[in-house]
């Protein structure tokens, strides 16, 4: 079989299987634990306004950024209280899905 050089070691229940990966398996992304201190864009969109500044204290549920997506203005907020550490985007930026927007200290 001419596939031999493409085989991967596929480890399952203490056995290394020799096998080919599927396309989907290769595309699979490592899972990351949700981090309440990071605010990501849940959908792609346009940053219309940023309502906070660096080092500003924010409360849980307080709108920190306005994101236009699906023809709606989405008010994004943190699920915890905290202080703004970094703002990764600016007004007018187009952001993609899961892009990191703002981080808390």
């Amino acid at each position, binding site marked *: *079989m001419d596939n031999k050089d493409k085989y991967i070691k596929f480890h399952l229940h203490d056995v290394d299987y020799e096998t080919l990966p599927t396309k989907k398996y290769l595309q699979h992304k490592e899972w990351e634990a949700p981090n309440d201190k990071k605010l990501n864009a849940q959908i792609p*969109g346009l940053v219309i306004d940023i309502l906070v500044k660096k080092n500003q204290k924010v409360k849980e549920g307080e709108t920190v950024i306005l994101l236009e997506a699906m023809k709606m203005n989405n008010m994004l907020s943190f699920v915890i209280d905290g202080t703004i550490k970094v703002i990764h985007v600016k007004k007018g930026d187009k952001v993609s899905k899961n892009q990191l927007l703002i981080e808390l200290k």
Partner: protein
Amino acid sequence: MSIKKKTKELLKLREKMQEGGGEKAIEKQKKMGKLTARERIESLLDEGSFQEYDLFVEHEARDFDMDKKILPGDGVITGTGTINGKPICIYAQDFTVAGGSLGYMHARKITKIMDHAMRMRIPMIGINDSGGARIQEGVNSLAGYGEIFWRNTLVSGVIPQISVILGPCAGGAVYSPALTDFVFVVDNVSKMFITGPEVIKTVLGEEISMEDLGGAKVHSEITGNAHFYAESELECFVQIRSLLEYLPLNYQKRPDIIDVKEPYKKYSPEKIVPVDSSKPYDVREVIKGVVDHSKFLEVQEMWAQNMVIGFGRIDGRSVGFIANQPMYLAGVLDVDSSDKAARFIRFCDAFNIPIITMVDLPGYLPGVDQEHAGVIRHGAKVLYAYSEATVPKITVILRKAYGGGYIAMGSRHLRADFVYAWPTAEIAVMGPQGAANIIFRKEIAEAEDPEAMREQKVEEYRKRFANPYVAAGKGYVDAVIEPEETRHVLMHALEVSKDKAIRHMDKKHGIPPF
């Protein structure tokens, strides 16, 4: 006026209508690398067998100056014909007429031929090439789609339904193919999606081409929406003709029994399958070793390759194969492969095609994405489909059959009629390594030489459990067979079970996990 003259008039009228959208539109269709609707029907069906219906149907739309427009055949050709000498009903949307857009009469032509297929109990083939709803006809056009979907569902499991995507098929239109049994796509020609690139761009800002969003490759490799992929329309028609050879006309009939030719000698299990169950091989070669003339028609070849499904013949009888593929991901069950197997089992069961399962899997694919994608829900479909199926179910365990995967893959417990195992079979809760590490954890940890102890215990477990004889000792496996006699054993099992009859418990219908 004489009959001759009247007939001449008819022929003239017919010729004009059969031109469809006219020269310019046909030229445009050709430039897109597509055949016309009429050419498609002629190439697919037996030569000269097509009988057209409703050539003179006209639309009744009045708004937007539609009353001044003549749309030949209202953008769709319908009729009956034969493939491999057997009757079928067919429609082909004509993109040269108003972009193949679906208006009320267009839909009525389709539903009329579908009703005909249902009454005559013969397969229905739909060739899709349409810009979508005819906007000028408003809700009437939507009603048309709804009527088609309802019929797709009504005849599901009564007659085989085949969809061929030879052009755009977007928005609501995609749901008719999705409700049918087999979807055929052609590279660079087929385009299927719910919302197109333009809408995605305006709403989400994501830029993508039609081909990357919903082209033939995407639906064959990623979404699993398509069952057969071809490089050209003509290759696609050959695939349709081959598929129909394995299917009966309807659920009350059986597929034809055709002349038997022995498989090729080169597909000998001894040459194909390594005894070490961590080593890969192509299970399709094992299938080719048992089917007539080594001819195997694989379904969904490019999607969820860790599970192989498809049709073959044994002793002239059409059978459906479901097999783990050790060549890909060691043959594990996962979300997609479960979906793939479950739907195929239900198709075979509906149309009296016996199911042969070949088992060689280490279990389920671990991973957060699998769990979060609902591998529980999808995996349950396999159990449901096997348990529910009443056609003859024959299972051959080739090598490993571990844990839940053993139960799911057509086991005795889900009422397989025959369960055979090769001497290389390992039927156990898990492989020797994993099992020894759990059962003898303490001994291994406390040993002077833990590695030597581990090896010894793995070997002990392997000898005791990694074989077919424990399961055979309980009667869960009916017979341990010589790999080389597999075809012979399958022929026998099919012969014995040809009049299998099972009465379902009385109920309206079950609730499968979908």
